[in-house]
């Protein structure tokens, strides 16, 4: 009976999700790397997989790639339980990049594309397109060991995307790239998304998450501690904090006059015109209008804006809370 309900639940699959991980458990001996992990990656999204080192991100990615098998739970790709045939629908760029050093670039790319199920002529055509696009003409017969690190990264990127998979998984995609090439790759990734690919993105670089991701999941100590749309997560972490700037005659007096319940913090005096910058936190029963009138009574209000928590803040706060 219970099982039937469970089965029914798993049939109620949301067609909008490219990937769903349900109740994934992975153990290595006595160590539990993933403990009942659930994520849902919507189609066409850039999904940020965040977490401190050793949280279990790589374990999850390896399970999605069928490199290892989970001890429990299931993965659905476009609604179907993951099977070996899905290999051609997934592209994976591991954090630790690697290619055969003594093999020629072109030969190597064709080999890896054919392992993904492309025919030789298909692989050749795709490669010519990408080599052209990323300015890599003339690299075909070079051995990988002759290339610079950034150049090798480009080859790695092509190897990941050339079979046009539905789901692309990037583990720290920008490490090793100079800013110009990092931007180039970022634009390529976003373009692939616009063409219909779904992207999972594992990184420590919070600014790139902020810039690119529309959904995130935070994994800490083998559990998903936070997940959802980036906007909604941020919404959840809003706690009525505002940045305020006031021009006053007497700063000390003004500070004392601010009601205690605002919990003014991070007070700074800036500029020649006696501007006082600080942070306040509005209690539940105080409206914005109310606080504005409170503040204008103390001096000339030049700045009042909500502090939206950054992904970085959310990350640190959640991980700390989780202990």
């Amino acid at each position, binding site marked *: 009976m219970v099982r039937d309900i469970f089965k029914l639940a798993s049939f109620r699959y949301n067609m909008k999700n490219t990937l769903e991980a349900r109740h994934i458990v992975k153990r290595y*001996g006595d160590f539990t790397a993933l403990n009942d992990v659930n994520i849902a990656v919507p189609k066409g999204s850039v999904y940020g997989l965040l977490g401190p080192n050793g949280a279990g991100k790589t374990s999850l990615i*390896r399970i999605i790639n069928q*490199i290892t098998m989970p001890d429990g739970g299931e993965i659905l790709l476009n609604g179907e339980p993951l099977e070996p045939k899905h290999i051609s629908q997934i592209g994976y760029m*591991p954090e630790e990049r690697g290619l055969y050093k003594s093999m020629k670039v072109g030969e190597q790319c064709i080999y890896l594309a054919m*392992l993904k199920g492309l025919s030789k002529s298909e692989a050749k055509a795709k490669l010519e397109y990408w080599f052209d696009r990323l300015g890599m003409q003339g690299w075909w017969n070079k051995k990988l060991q002759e290339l610079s690190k950034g150049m090798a990264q480009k080859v790695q990127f092509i190897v990941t995307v050339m079979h046009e998979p539905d789901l692309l998984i990037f583990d720290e995609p920008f490490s090793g790239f100079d800013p110009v090439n990092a931007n180039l790759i970022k634009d390529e990734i976003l373009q692939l998304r616009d063409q219909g690919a779904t992207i999972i993105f594992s990184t420590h670089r919070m600014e790139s998450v902020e810039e690119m991701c529309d959904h995130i999941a935070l994994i800490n100590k083998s559990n998903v501690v936070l997940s959802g749309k980036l906007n909604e997560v941020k919404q959840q972490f809003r706690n009525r904090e505002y940045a305020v700037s006031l021009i006053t005659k007497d700063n000390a007096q003004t500070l004392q006059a601010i009601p205690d319940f605002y919990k003014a913090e991070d007070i700074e005096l800036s500029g020649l015109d006696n501007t006082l910058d600080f942070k306040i936190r509005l209690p539940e029963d105080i409206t914005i209008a109310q606080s504005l009138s409170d503040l204008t009574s103390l001096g000339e209000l030049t700045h009042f804006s909500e502090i939206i928590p950054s992904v970085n803040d959310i990350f640190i706060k959640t991980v700390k809370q989780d202990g």
Partner: protein
Amino acid sequence: MDKLWLIIKREYLNKVRNKTFIIMTFVSPMIFVGVALLVGFLTSLNNDTTRKIAILDDTSIYAPLFEDSERTDYIIIENNNLQAAIDASKAADYYGLIHISRQNNQLDEVTLYSDDSPSLGFINEIEDKISKKATEDQLVARGINLETIKDSKITTDLKLQSYTGVQTSKANGWIKMAFGGGAGYLLMMFIIIYGNMVMRSVIEEKTNRIIEIIISSVKPIYLMIGKITGTSLAGITQFVIWVILGGILFTVASTFLGPEAVQSPGNDMAMSQLENMDKMQLIINDIMQLPLLKLVICFFIYFIGGYFLYAAIYTAIGAAVDNETDTQQFMLPVILPLILSIYVGFFSVMDNPHGTVAVIFSYIPLTSPIVMLMRIPFGDIAYWEIGLSMLLLYVSIFGVAWFAAKIYRVGILMYGKKTNWKELYKWLKY
């Protein structure tokens, strides 16, 4: 299946195109033939120098026996003083001085003065010459006609024949040893060289980190099988090239230097037993009598089985470590059975191919390829024995490969951990 084929092809081409492979393949036979030629040349050089030996014969009877030969010149010294003779031959830089002393008009002692250590053959030659003459003189002195003795002499020549009436030559043992031992030794070399090659290639993929990309496309077991198969094909290619090249070079060398120059010492001993062409015929007969077809077929079956068994172990070791230096602790258990089989082959099997030790080791999968191969030329090994040994070998390949694949699967994704036996055991349970 397509992917497995792709992997095999890549591994094969990668090995065959490798510079070291090309150099090894083409240079090794040249080195081998070069060394053989050098040894032949040096030996002939050695035989070219003629030794000069002085003879001081107090009896004057024996000196004429020493006739100059190709390699030795004898100089008879007419001088009664031993010390003077020693000094003279030393001054003339002779190889040595033979002094035959006399007492009561009879042979007393024969002494060879020399700074070198003369060979046993040379000593025997001198002893034989003098003893024969002395004995004959004694016989004549006692009134016996030498012709009578010569006429009544009968020599026997032991003929070897099996119960079924097949004649064999006295060199038969050597021929069997050469065929059995050669096959066994070849197999061991192949296992060690190509096993190491597989292991290095696993370590390379692991340290390159390309492994994650590959096994997100194919199952680790396919990569493992593909790697082992591709490498074995490269090995077979190398051996085929060696056999062809070696054959050509050897033929060329033999034509130029004559057969003596490139003969191995083993052959020399066998050859020395030959006195006429009849025996040569017997040797060829011997070789034809060997179960050659059986040997060749068995060689390939054991070759493939033995190689796959050990290659699986090598793969697991490669997956378990981060770099080649860490492999040391795991190498001994791999090398040990190989060396053991060679020893068992050369001692127990040669001694008694049906002895308990030989039989047991020809069933144990880790040693059976080499030991059974060495047993085959020596005795009539029943087909059921060979069949059983092969069955055990191939069944154990699946067993070992299963364990190896488990270790491989876990090992290739483990980094920075020093692996020990306990850790490996834990991986089996993952």
